[in-house]
Protein backbone atom coordinates (compact mmCIF):
# COMPACT_ATOMS: atom_id res chain seq x y z
CA UNK A 1 0.00 0.00 0.00
CA UNK A 2 1.27 3.48 -0.89
CA UNK A 3 0.15 6.91 0.29
CA UNK A 4 1.07 10.42 -0.75
CA UNK A 5 0.31 13.46 1.35
CA UNK A 6 1.46 16.58 3.11
CA UNK A 7 3.11 16.31 6.54
CA UNK A 8 1.55 17.93 9.61
CA UNK A 9 4.04 18.18 12.48
CA UNK A 10 3.27 17.43 16.13
CA UNK A 11 5.39 17.40 19.29
CA UNK A 12 6.42 14.59 21.68
CA UNK A 13 3.85 12.95 23.98
CA UNK A 14 0.72 13.91 22.02
CA UNK A 15 -2.00 12.39 24.20
CA UNK A 16 -5.42 10.97 23.37
CA UNK A 17 -7.18 13.89 25.09
CA UNK A 18 -5.50 16.14 22.53
CA UNK A 19 -6.29 13.84 19.60
CA UNK A 20 -9.95 13.70 20.60
CA UNK A 21 -11.14 15.38 23.83
CA UNK A 22 -13.32 13.31 26.15
CA UNK A 23 -16.29 15.64 25.70
CA UNK A 24 -16.80 14.08 22.25
CA UNK A 25 -16.68 10.47 23.45
CA UNK A 26 -20.45 10.23 23.58
CA UNK A 27 -20.42 9.26 19.90
CA UNK A 28 -18.56 6.82 17.67
CA UNK A 29 -19.46 8.56 14.39
CA UNK A 30 -16.26 8.95 12.28
CA UNK A 31 -17.42 12.16 10.57
CA UNK A 32 -18.23 13.90 13.83
CA UNK A 33 -15.10 12.66 15.62
CA UNK A 34 -12.98 13.61 12.57
CA UNK A 35 -14.25 17.16 12.79
CA UNK A 36 -12.70 17.51 16.27
CA UNK A 37 -9.44 15.68 15.53
CA UNK A 38 -6.43 17.40 17.22
CA UNK A 39 -8.74 20.25 18.23
CA UNK A 40 -6.96 20.79 21.57
CA UNK A 41 -3.68 21.52 19.79
CA UNK A 42 -5.01 23.23 16.65
CA UNK A 43 -8.74 24.08 16.63
CA UNK A 44 -8.74 24.34 12.80
CA UNK A 45 -6.76 21.17 12.10
CA UNK A 46 -9.60 19.23 10.48
CA UNK A 47 -10.43 22.18 8.22
CA UNK A 48 -6.85 22.75 7.10
CA UNK A 49 -5.96 19.23 6.01
CA UNK A 50 -6.57 17.54 2.69
CA UNK A 51 -7.64 13.93 2.42
CA UNK A 52 -4.58 11.68 2.45
CA UNK A 53 -2.35 14.01 4.51
CA UNK A 54 0.03 12.50 7.03
CA UNK A 55 0.58 13.19 10.74
CA UNK A 56 4.25 13.27 11.78
CA UNK A 57 5.09 13.35 15.48
CA UNK A 58 7.87 12.90 18.02
CA UNK A 59 8.05 10.21 20.65
CA UNK A 60 5.24 8.51 22.62
CA UNK A 61 2.45 9.53 20.22
CA UNK A 62 -1.03 8.64 21.51
CA UNK A 63 -0.21 8.32 25.20
CA UNK A 64 -3.07 8.32 27.68
CA UNK A 65 -6.37 6.58 27.36
CA UNK A 66 -7.38 3.45 25.46
CA UNK A 67 -10.06 5.23 23.42
CA UNK A 68 -10.26 3.99 19.82
CA UNK A 69 -12.11 7.22 19.15
CA UNK A 70 -8.55 8.55 18.60
CA UNK A 71 -8.01 6.26 15.61
CA UNK A 72 -11.57 6.82 14.40
CA UNK A 73 -11.05 10.61 14.61
CA UNK A 74 -7.74 10.48 12.72
CA UNK A 75 -9.21 8.27 10.01
CA UNK A 76 -12.44 10.28 10.00
CA UNK A 77 -10.50 13.51 9.43
CA UNK A 78 -9.00 11.96 6.31
CA UNK A 79 -5.44 11.33 7.54
CA UNK A 80 -3.86 8.42 5.64
CA UNK A 81 -1.17 7.41 8.13
CA UNK A 82 0.79 8.47 11.21
CA UNK A 83 4.59 8.56 11.37
CA UNK A 84 6.25 8.97 14.78
CA UNK A 85 9.54 8.39 16.56
CA UNK A 86 7.61 6.05 18.90
CA UNK A 87 4.02 5.24 19.82
CA UNK A 88 2.35 4.70 23.20
CA UNK A 89 1.51 1.03 23.50
CA UNK A 90 -2.30 1.05 23.55
CA UNK A 91 -2.39 3.50 20.63
CA UNK A 92 0.02 1.20 18.80
CA UNK A 93 -2.12 -1.92 19.21
CA UNK A 94 -5.36 -0.07 18.48
CA UNK A 95 -3.91 1.25 15.22
CA UNK A 96 -2.84 -2.26 14.18
CA UNK A 97 -6.15 -3.79 15.25
CA UNK A 98 -8.21 -1.14 13.44
CA UNK A 99 -6.14 -0.91 10.30
CA UNK A 100 -4.84 2.67 10.75
CA UNK A 101 -1.41 2.62 9.08
CA UNK A 102 1.40 3.72 11.43
CA UNK A 103 5.15 3.87 10.93
CA UNK A 104 7.84 4.16 13.57
CA UNK A 105 11.14 5.78 12.64
CA UNK A 106 13.85 7.60 14.58
CA UNK A 107 14.16 9.93 11.59
CA UNK A 108 10.68 11.41 12.03
CA UNK A 109 12.27 14.55 13.47
CA UNK A 110 13.82 15.33 10.06
CA UNK A 111 10.40 15.77 8.47
CA UNK A 112 9.12 19.35 8.47
CA UNK A 113 5.57 20.65 8.35
CA UNK A 114 4.43 20.92 4.76
CA UNK A 115 6.93 18.38 3.38
CA UNK A 116 5.31 16.22 0.74
CA UNK A 117 5.75 12.54 1.60
CA UNK A 118 5.30 9.22 -0.11
CA UNK A 119 4.91 6.19 2.14
CA UNK A 120 5.29 2.58 1.07
CA UNK A 121 3.76 0.46 3.83
CA UNK A 122 5.11 -2.83 2.46
CA UNK A 123 8.75 -1.77 2.52
CA UNK A 124 8.47 0.78 5.34
CA UNK A 125 10.22 3.36 3.15
CA UNK A 126 9.18 6.99 3.56
CA UNK A 127 10.25 9.29 0.72
CA UNK A 128 10.40 13.01 1.40
CA UNK A 129 9.56 14.38 -2.05
CA UNK A 130 10.21 17.97 -0.91
CA UNK A 131 13.65 17.32 0.57
CA UNK A 132 14.58 14.39 -1.74
CA UNK A 133 15.38 12.18 1.24
CA UNK A 134 14.48 8.66 2.24
CA UNK A 135 13.79 7.31 5.73
CA UNK A 136 13.33 3.67 6.73
CA UNK A 137 10.67 2.76 9.26
CA UNK A 138 11.17 -0.17 11.60
CA UNK A 139 9.52 -3.20 9.95
CA UNK A 140 6.63 -4.83 11.83
CA UNK A 141 7.05 -8.38 13.15
CA UNK A 142 5.51 -11.04 10.91
CA UNK A 143 2.56 -11.62 13.20
CA UNK A 144 1.56 -7.95 13.15
CA UNK A 145 1.97 -7.78 9.37
CA UNK A 146 -0.50 -10.65 9.20
CA UNK A 147 -3.13 -8.70 11.19
CA UNK A 148 -2.57 -5.62 9.02
CA UNK A 149 -2.81 -7.56 5.76
CA UNK A 150 -6.00 -9.24 7.00
CA UNK A 151 -7.52 -5.77 7.39
CA UNK A 152 -7.55 -5.65 11.19
CA UNK A 153 -7.88 -7.94 14.19
CA UNK A 154 -11.48 -9.07 13.76
CA UNK A 155 -10.99 -10.03 10.11
CA UNK A 156 -7.82 -11.88 11.14
CA UNK A 157 -9.81 -13.82 13.74
CA UNK A 158 -12.51 -14.58 11.23
CA UNK A 159 -9.90 -15.91 8.83
CA UNK A 160 -7.88 -17.90 11.35
CA UNK A 161 -10.72 -19.11 13.54
CA UNK A 162 -11.20 -18.27 17.17
CA UNK A 163 -8.68 -20.60 18.74
CA UNK A 164 -5.41 -20.07 16.98
CA UNK A 165 -2.00 -20.01 18.57
CA UNK A 166 0.94 -17.88 17.63
CA UNK A 167 4.01 -19.75 16.48
Amino acid sequence: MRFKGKAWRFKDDVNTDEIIPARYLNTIDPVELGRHCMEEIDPDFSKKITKGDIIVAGKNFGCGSSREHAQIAIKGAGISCVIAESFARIFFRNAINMGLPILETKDAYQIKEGDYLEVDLDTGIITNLTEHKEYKARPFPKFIQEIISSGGLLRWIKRKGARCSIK
Partner: protein
Amino acid sequence: MYTITEKILLAHTDKKSISPGDFIYAKIDLALGNDITAPISIKEFEDIGAKKVFDRRKIALVPDHFTPAKDKKSAEQARCLKDFAGRHNIENYFEIGRMGVEHALLPEQGLVKPGDLIIGADSHTCTYGALAAFSTGVGSTDLAAAFITGCIWLRVPESMKFIYYGRLRPWVGGKDLILHTIASIGVDGALYKAMEFTGETIRRLPMDDRFSICNMAIEAGAKSGIIEADDITFEYIRRVSKKQKVNFKLNNDILKSDPDARYCKVREYDVSKIEPQVAGPHLPSNSRPVSRFKNVRIDQAVIGSCTNGRISDLRIAAKVLKGKKVNPNIRLIVIPATQEVYLQAVKEGLAEIFLKAGGVFSTPSCGPCLGGHMGILGKGERAIATTNRNFRGRMGHPDSEVYLSNPAVAAASAVKGRIAHPEEVI
Protein backbone atom coordinates in the same frame (compact mmCIF):
# COMPACT_ATOMS: atom_id res chain seq x y z
CA MET B 1 14.32 -17.48 36.03
CA TYR B 2 10.98 -15.82 35.37
CA THR B 3 9.43 -12.62 36.65
CA ILE B 4 5.92 -12.82 38.09
CA THR B 5 4.66 -11.20 34.86
CA GLU B 6 6.31 -13.85 32.68
CA LYS B 7 5.01 -16.65 34.93
CA ILE B 8 1.41 -15.46 34.74
CA LEU B 9 1.57 -14.98 30.97
CA LEU B 10 3.15 -18.41 30.46
CA ALA B 11 0.43 -20.04 32.58
CA HIS B 12 -2.17 -18.60 30.17
CA THR B 13 -0.63 -20.02 26.99
CA ASP B 14 0.00 -23.52 25.69
CA LYS B 15 3.72 -22.80 25.46
CA LYS B 16 6.51 -24.42 27.46
CA SER B 17 8.61 -21.30 27.79
CA ILE B 18 8.47 -17.61 26.94
CA SER B 19 10.81 -14.66 26.86
CA PRO B 20 10.40 -10.91 26.48
CA GLY B 21 9.64 -9.92 22.90
CA ASP B 22 7.70 -13.14 22.11
CA PHE B 23 4.23 -12.75 20.67
CA ILE B 24 1.75 -14.96 22.49
CA TYR B 25 -1.91 -15.74 22.22
CA ALA B 26 -3.18 -15.94 25.78
CA LYS B 27 -6.38 -16.98 27.52
CA ILE B 28 -8.26 -14.30 29.42
CA ASP B 29 -9.80 -14.64 32.90
CA LEU B 30 -11.76 -11.40 32.71
CA ALA B 31 -12.53 -8.87 29.95
CA LEU B 32 -13.80 -5.42 30.95
CA GLY B 33 -15.54 -2.66 29.06
CA ASN B 34 -17.21 0.63 30.00
CA ASP B 35 -19.81 3.00 28.54
CA ILE B 36 -17.17 4.79 26.41
CA THR B 37 -15.24 1.84 25.00
CA ALA B 38 -17.65 -1.10 24.97
CA PRO B 39 -20.19 0.41 22.52
CA ILE B 40 -17.49 0.26 19.80
CA SER B 41 -16.69 -3.35 20.76
CA ILE B 42 -20.35 -4.30 20.68
CA LYS B 43 -20.78 -2.74 17.24
CA GLU B 44 -17.73 -4.62 15.95
CA PHE B 45 -18.93 -7.86 17.57
CA GLU B 46 -22.23 -7.51 15.77
CA ASP B 47 -20.83 -6.21 12.47
CA ILE B 48 -18.67 -9.30 12.09
CA GLY B 49 -21.68 -11.52 12.72
CA ALA B 50 -20.61 -12.99 16.07
CA LYS B 51 -23.49 -14.68 17.86
CA LYS B 52 -22.13 -15.78 21.23
CA VAL B 53 -19.71 -14.46 23.82
CA PHE B 54 -16.93 -16.86 24.88
CA ASP B 55 -18.03 -16.97 28.53
CA ARG B 56 -20.78 -14.84 30.03
CA ARG B 57 -19.18 -15.06 33.49
CA LYS B 58 -15.81 -13.71 32.35
CA ILE B 59 -17.03 -10.40 30.97
CA ALA B 60 -17.61 -7.28 33.08
CA LEU B 61 -19.52 -4.26 31.76
CA VAL B 62 -19.46 -1.13 33.90
CA PRO B 63 -21.26 2.06 32.86
CA ASP B 64 -19.13 4.45 34.92
CA HIS B 65 -17.69 7.21 32.73
CA PHE B 66 -20.60 9.42 31.65
CA THR B 67 -23.09 8.04 34.17
CA PRO B 68 -25.58 8.66 35.60
CA ALA B 69 -26.11 9.59 31.95
CA LYS B 70 -25.00 13.19 31.42
CA ASP B 71 -26.81 13.69 28.10
CA LYS B 72 -28.87 11.87 25.48
CA LYS B 73 -25.94 10.41 23.58
CA SER B 74 -24.35 9.14 26.80
CA ALA B 75 -27.65 7.56 27.77
CA GLU B 76 -27.67 5.69 24.45
CA GLN B 77 -24.14 4.41 25.02
CA ALA B 78 -25.01 3.16 28.51
CA ARG B 79 -28.15 1.60 27.06
CA CYS B 80 -26.02 -0.21 24.47
CA LEU B 81 -24.12 -1.94 27.32
CA LYS B 82 -27.28 -2.83 29.16
CA ASP B 83 -28.91 -4.32 26.06
CA PHE B 84 -25.82 -6.35 25.19
CA ALA B 85 -25.54 -7.59 28.80
CA GLY B 86 -29.19 -8.62 28.67
CA ARG B 87 -28.94 -10.36 25.29
CA HIS B 88 -25.89 -12.37 26.30
CA ASN B 89 -26.83 -12.85 29.93
CA ILE B 90 -23.59 -11.21 31.10
CA GLU B 91 -23.23 -11.94 34.80
CA ASN B 92 -21.15 -8.92 35.76
CA TYR B 93 -23.11 -5.95 34.47
CA PHE B 94 -23.35 -3.23 37.10
CA GLU B 95 -26.30 -0.86 36.94
CA ILE B 96 -26.34 2.59 38.50
CA GLY B 97 -26.92 2.22 42.22
CA ARG B 98 -24.90 -0.98 42.33
CA MET B 99 -21.89 0.18 40.37
CA GLY B 100 -18.67 2.02 40.88
CA VAL B 101 -15.63 3.24 39.01
CA GLU B 102 -14.56 0.04 37.28
CA HIS B 103 -11.03 -0.34 38.69
CA ALA B 104 -12.22 0.14 42.25
CA LEU B 105 -15.33 -1.96 41.69
CA LEU B 106 -13.96 -5.19 40.21
CA PRO B 107 -11.43 -5.94 42.98
CA GLU B 108 -14.00 -5.01 45.64
CA GLN B 109 -16.51 -7.42 44.08
CA GLY B 110 -13.99 -10.28 44.25
CA LEU B 111 -13.66 -10.48 40.47
CA VAL B 112 -9.87 -10.13 40.45
CA LYS B 113 -7.71 -13.01 41.65
CA PRO B 114 -3.93 -13.18 42.00
CA GLY B 115 -2.44 -14.86 38.94
CA ASP B 116 -5.31 -13.83 36.65
CA LEU B 117 -4.88 -12.41 33.17
CA ILE B 118 -7.25 -9.47 32.80
CA ILE B 119 -7.76 -7.10 29.91
CA GLY B 120 -9.92 -4.02 29.88
CA ALA B 121 -10.81 -1.45 27.27
CA ASP B 122 -9.62 1.29 29.60
CA SER B 123 -6.04 2.36 30.08
CA HIS B 124 -6.16 2.15 33.88
CA THR B 125 -6.90 -1.58 33.77
CA CYS B 126 -3.29 -1.97 34.95
CA THR B 127 -4.68 -1.31 38.49
CA TYR B 128 -5.27 -5.03 39.18
CA GLY B 129 -1.54 -5.71 39.25
CA ALA B 130 -1.84 -4.62 42.88
CA LEU B 131 -3.47 -8.03 43.48
CA ALA B 132 -0.66 -9.87 41.65
CA ALA B 133 -2.69 -10.24 38.46
CA PHE B 134 -1.40 -9.44 34.98
CA SER B 135 -3.75 -6.76 33.74
CA THR B 136 -3.47 -4.36 30.89
CA GLY B 137 -5.45 -1.73 29.03
CA VAL B 138 -6.43 -2.46 25.44
CA GLY B 139 -8.70 -0.95 22.84
CA SER B 140 -12.28 -1.67 21.90
CA THR B 141 -11.28 -3.90 18.99
CA ASP B 142 -9.20 -6.06 21.32
CA LEU B 143 -12.21 -6.25 23.62
CA ALA B 144 -14.49 -7.28 20.75
CA ALA B 145 -12.03 -10.01 19.81
CA ALA B 146 -11.89 -11.11 23.45
CA PHE B 147 -15.70 -11.26 23.65
CA ILE B 148 -15.60 -13.73 20.74
CA THR B 149 -12.48 -15.78 21.44
CA GLY B 150 -11.63 -15.37 25.13
CA CYS B 151 -8.06 -14.76 23.99
CA ILE B 152 -5.73 -11.86 23.30
CA TRP B 153 -2.48 -11.34 21.40
CA LEU B 154 0.28 -9.92 23.55
CA ARG B 155 3.95 -9.16 23.24
CA VAL B 156 5.70 -10.44 26.36
CA PRO B 157 7.05 -7.28 28.03
CA GLU B 158 10.46 -6.82 29.56
CA SER B 159 10.19 -6.10 33.28
CA MET B 160 11.55 -3.12 35.20
CA LYS B 161 12.02 -3.46 38.95
CA PHE B 162 11.27 -0.60 41.32
CA ILE B 163 12.51 -1.15 44.87
CA TYR B 164 11.28 1.08 47.71
CA TYR B 165 12.86 1.12 51.16
CA GLY B 166 12.62 3.23 54.30
CA ARG B 167 9.72 4.61 56.33
CA LEU B 168 7.08 6.81 54.75
CA ARG B 169 6.77 10.35 56.10
CA PRO B 170 3.40 11.48 57.48
CA TRP B 171 0.83 12.25 54.75
CA VAL B 172 2.78 10.29 52.14
CA GLY B 173 1.11 7.30 50.47
CA GLY B 174 1.01 5.18 47.35
CA LYS B 175 0.01 8.14 45.17
CA ASP B 176 3.14 10.06 46.16
CA LEU B 177 5.39 7.06 45.48
CA ILE B 178 4.02 6.59 41.98
CA LEU B 179 4.06 10.33 41.13
CA HIS B 180 7.67 10.51 42.33
CA THR B 181 8.53 7.40 40.31
CA ILE B 182 6.92 8.74 37.10
CA ALA B 183 8.80 12.01 37.55
CA SER B 184 12.04 10.04 37.82
CA ILE B 185 11.58 8.06 34.58
CA GLY B 186 9.22 10.24 32.47
CA VAL B 187 5.87 9.56 30.82
CA ASP B 188 7.45 7.08 28.42
CA GLY B 189 10.05 5.79 30.88
CA ALA B 190 8.44 2.35 31.01
CA LEU B 191 7.04 2.25 27.47
CA TYR B 192 5.91 -1.32 26.57
CA LYS B 193 7.38 -2.61 29.87
CA ALA B 194 5.98 -4.29 32.98
CA MET B 195 6.69 -2.27 36.14
CA GLU B 196 7.23 -4.50 39.15
CA PHE B 197 7.00 -2.68 42.47
CA THR B 198 8.77 -4.27 45.41
CA GLY B 199 10.85 -3.67 48.54
CA GLU B 200 10.18 -3.39 52.26
CA THR B 201 8.04 -0.26 51.91
CA ILE B 202 5.71 -1.96 49.44
CA ARG B 203 5.44 -5.04 51.68
CA ARG B 204 4.09 -2.83 54.48
CA LEU B 205 1.78 -0.84 52.20
CA PRO B 206 -2.02 -1.37 52.52
CA MET B 207 -4.00 -2.57 49.48
CA ASP B 208 -5.56 0.82 48.68
CA ASP B 209 -2.12 2.40 48.31
CA ARG B 210 -1.00 -0.51 46.15
CA PHE B 211 -3.99 0.05 43.86
CA SER B 212 -3.00 3.72 43.46
CA ILE B 213 0.53 2.74 42.49
CA CYS B 214 -0.37 0.10 39.89
CA ASN B 215 -3.21 2.30 38.57
CA MET B 216 -0.72 4.89 37.34
CA ALA B 217 1.79 2.51 35.71
CA ILE B 218 0.24 3.53 32.38
CA GLU B 219 1.24 7.14 33.07
CA ALA B 220 4.85 6.02 32.65
CA GLY B 221 3.85 4.29 29.39
CA ALA B 222 3.92 0.81 30.96
CA LYS B 223 1.95 -2.17 29.75
CA SER B 224 1.31 -3.27 33.29
CA GLY B 225 2.21 -2.70 36.92
CA ILE B 226 2.44 -5.55 39.37
CA ILE B 227 3.14 -6.33 43.03
CA GLU B 228 3.92 -9.87 44.21
CA ALA B 229 1.27 -11.50 46.39
CA ASP B 230 1.83 -11.50 50.16
CA ASP B 231 -0.23 -11.71 53.36
CA ILE B 232 -1.82 -8.30 52.71
CA THR B 233 -2.94 -9.50 49.25
CA PHE B 234 -4.36 -12.76 50.59
CA GLU B 235 -6.15 -11.03 53.46
CA TYR B 236 -7.85 -8.71 50.95
CA ILE B 237 -8.76 -11.64 48.69
CA ARG B 238 -10.21 -13.62 51.61
CA ARG B 239 -12.40 -10.66 52.54
CA VAL B 240 -13.78 -9.90 49.08
CA SER B 241 -14.00 -13.43 47.69
CA LYS B 242 -16.85 -14.17 50.07
CA LYS B 243 -18.98 -12.23 47.58
CA GLN B 244 -18.27 -14.83 44.91
CA LYS B 245 -20.02 -18.13 45.34
CA VAL B 246 -17.21 -20.17 43.84
CA ASN B 247 -14.09 -21.04 45.77
CA PHE B 248 -10.89 -20.81 43.85
CA LYS B 249 -7.47 -22.30 44.32
CA LEU B 250 -4.44 -20.12 44.00
CA ASN B 251 -1.34 -21.28 42.25
CA ASN B 252 1.13 -19.72 44.68
CA ASP B 253 4.18 -20.62 42.61
CA ILE B 254 3.36 -18.09 39.95
CA LEU B 255 2.67 -15.20 42.31
CA LYS B 256 6.31 -14.31 42.95
CA SER B 257 9.29 -13.55 40.76
CA ASP B 258 12.22 -15.98 40.82
CA PRO B 259 15.37 -14.74 42.58
CA ASP B 260 17.26 -14.95 39.27
CA ALA B 261 14.50 -13.33 37.17
CA ARG B 262 15.74 -10.88 34.53
CA TYR B 263 14.97 -7.16 34.58
CA CYS B 264 15.91 -4.64 31.92
CA LYS B 265 16.31 -1.98 34.61
CA VAL B 266 16.33 -1.81 38.42
CA ARG B 267 15.73 1.44 40.30
CA GLU B 268 15.75 2.09 44.05
CA TYR B 269 14.01 4.76 46.07
CA ASP B 270 14.60 5.83 49.68
CA VAL B 271 11.01 6.79 50.56
CA SER B 272 11.99 8.59 53.76
CA LYS B 273 13.16 11.42 51.46
CA ILE B 274 9.84 11.70 49.62
CA GLU B 275 7.45 14.57 50.51
CA PRO B 276 3.81 14.59 49.43
CA GLN B 277 3.97 15.13 45.65
CA VAL B 278 2.07 17.38 43.28
CA ALA B 279 2.20 16.97 39.49
CA GLY B 280 1.84 20.31 37.75
CA PRO B 281 0.30 20.80 34.31
CA HIS B 282 0.30 19.19 31.82
CA LEU B 283 2.00 15.83 32.46
CA PRO B 284 1.94 13.39 35.40
CA SER B 285 5.75 13.42 35.21
CA ASN B 286 5.83 17.08 36.32
CA SER B 287 5.82 15.94 39.95
CA ARG B 288 7.65 17.84 42.64
CA PRO B 289 7.28 18.19 46.43
CA VAL B 290 4.09 19.99 47.46
CA SER B 291 6.16 22.74 49.10
CA ARG B 292 7.18 23.91 45.62
CA PHE B 293 3.57 24.69 44.68
CA LYS B 294 2.44 26.72 47.68
CA ASN B 295 1.66 29.89 45.76
CA VAL B 296 -0.66 28.17 43.30
CA ARG B 297 -4.25 29.35 43.83
CA ILE B 298 -7.00 26.91 42.87
CA ASP B 299 -10.70 27.03 42.01
CA GLN B 300 -11.65 23.43 42.60
CA ALA B 301 -10.53 20.32 44.50
CA VAL B 302 -11.61 16.86 43.35
CA ILE B 303 -11.25 13.80 45.57
CA GLY B 304 -12.16 10.51 43.92
CA SER B 305 -11.44 8.38 40.79
CA CYS B 306 -10.01 4.91 40.19
CA THR B 307 -6.73 6.21 41.61
CA ASN B 308 -7.88 7.66 44.95
CA GLY B 309 -11.60 7.16 45.50
CA ARG B 310 -11.38 4.24 47.93
CA ILE B 311 -12.44 4.28 51.56
CA SER B 312 -8.98 4.90 52.98
CA ASP B 313 -8.62 7.88 50.63
CA LEU B 314 -11.89 9.35 51.93
CA ARG B 315 -10.80 8.68 55.52
CA ILE B 316 -7.58 10.62 54.97
CA ALA B 317 -9.46 13.52 53.32
CA ALA B 318 -11.99 13.56 56.18
CA LYS B 319 -9.21 13.61 58.75
CA VAL B 320 -7.92 16.82 57.18
CA LEU B 321 -11.37 18.38 56.70
CA LYS B 322 -12.95 17.49 60.04
CA GLY B 323 -14.27 20.65 61.70
CA LYS B 324 -12.86 22.81 58.88
CA LYS B 325 -14.54 24.89 56.20
CA VAL B 326 -13.75 24.81 52.53
CA ASN B 327 -12.31 28.17 51.43
CA PRO B 328 -15.13 30.43 50.16
CA ASN B 329 -13.55 30.61 46.69
CA ILE B 330 -13.23 26.84 46.27
CA ARG B 331 -15.53 24.09 45.05
CA LEU B 332 -14.79 20.77 46.78
CA ILE B 333 -16.14 17.70 44.96
CA VAL B 334 -15.83 14.33 46.68
CA ILE B 335 -16.74 11.26 44.63
CA PRO B 336 -16.57 7.87 46.34
CA ALA B 337 -15.39 5.28 43.80
CA THR B 338 -18.06 2.67 44.46
CA GLN B 339 -21.46 2.23 46.02
CA GLU B 340 -19.85 0.23 48.83
CA VAL B 341 -17.32 3.00 49.53
CA TYR B 342 -20.19 5.50 49.48
CA LEU B 343 -22.18 3.54 52.06
CA GLN B 344 -19.15 3.03 54.26
CA ALA B 345 -18.38 6.75 54.12
CA VAL B 346 -21.94 7.48 55.23
CA LYS B 347 -21.74 4.94 58.08
CA GLU B 348 -18.43 6.30 59.36
CA GLY B 349 -19.64 9.89 59.27
CA LEU B 350 -17.19 10.89 56.54
CA ALA B 351 -19.98 12.11 54.25
CA GLU B 352 -21.16 14.41 57.02
CA ILE B 353 -17.66 15.86 57.43
CA PHE B 354 -17.47 16.67 53.70
CA LEU B 355 -20.94 18.17 53.61
CA LYS B 356 -20.46 20.25 56.77
CA ALA B 357 -17.17 21.53 55.41
CA GLY B 358 -19.05 22.86 52.40
CA GLY B 359 -18.18 20.22 49.81
CA VAL B 360 -20.40 18.11 47.57
CA PHE B 361 -20.58 14.33 47.93
CA SER B 362 -21.52 12.68 44.66
CA THR B 363 -22.69 9.29 43.49
CA PRO B 364 -19.85 7.13 42.05
CA SER B 365 -18.72 8.19 38.55
CA CYS B 366 -15.51 8.88 36.66
CA GLY B 367 -17.09 12.33 36.35
CA PRO B 368 -14.64 15.23 36.09
CA CYS B 369 -11.49 13.06 35.93
CA LEU B 370 -11.73 12.90 32.14
CA GLY B 371 -13.73 16.08 31.75
CA GLY B 372 -16.98 14.19 31.42
CA HIS B 373 -19.31 15.90 33.88
CA MET B 374 -19.72 16.67 37.60
CA GLY B 375 -17.16 19.46 37.80
CA ILE B 376 -15.82 20.65 34.45
CA LEU B 377 -13.32 23.50 34.55
CA GLY B 378 -13.92 26.82 32.80
CA LYS B 379 -11.35 28.91 30.94
CA GLY B 380 -8.34 29.73 33.09
CA GLU B 381 -9.56 27.68 36.07
CA ARG B 382 -7.29 25.47 38.14
CA ALA B 383 -8.05 22.27 40.01
CA ILE B 384 -6.15 20.05 42.38
CA ALA B 385 -7.32 16.47 41.89
CA THR B 386 -6.57 13.02 43.22
CA THR B 387 -7.05 11.70 39.68
CA ASN B 388 -4.39 10.29 37.37
CA ARG B 389 -3.98 12.61 34.37
CA ASN B 390 -3.39 16.32 34.02
CA PHE B 391 -3.14 16.60 30.24
CA ARG B 392 -4.15 19.92 28.68
CA GLY B 393 -7.93 20.22 28.72
CA ARG B 394 -8.36 16.92 30.56
CA MET B 395 -10.90 18.33 33.04
CA GLY B 396 -12.55 20.87 30.77
CA HIS B 397 -11.45 24.01 28.95
CA PRO B 398 -8.15 23.74 27.03
CA ASP B 399 -6.93 26.75 29.03
CA SER B 400 -7.63 25.15 32.42
CA GLU B 401 -5.05 23.40 34.59
CA VAL B 402 -5.02 20.22 36.66
CA TYR B 403 -2.59 19.50 39.51
CA LEU B 404 -2.44 15.88 40.69
CA SER B 405 -1.98 14.97 44.36
CA ASN B 406 -2.93 12.59 47.14
CA PRO B 407 -6.26 13.05 49.03
CA ALA B 408 -4.70 14.78 52.06
CA VAL B 409 -3.09 17.46 49.92
CA ALA B 410 -6.27 17.95 47.90
CA ALA B 411 -8.31 18.34 51.11
CA ALA B 412 -5.81 20.75 52.68
CA SER B 413 -5.76 22.78 49.46
CA ALA B 414 -9.56 23.01 49.51
CA VAL B 415 -9.36 24.59 52.96
CA LYS B 416 -6.53 26.99 52.12
CA GLY B 417 -7.71 28.00 48.64
CA ARG B 418 -4.25 27.28 47.30
CA ILE B 419 -2.10 24.19 47.06
CA ALA B 420 -1.18 23.30 50.64
CA HIS B 421 0.60 20.68 52.73
CA PRO B 422 -1.81 18.92 55.15
CA GLU B 423 0.34 20.10 58.07
CA GLU B 424 -0.66 23.68 57.30
CA VAL B 425 -4.27 22.79 58.11
CA ILE B 426 -3.99 20.28 60.95
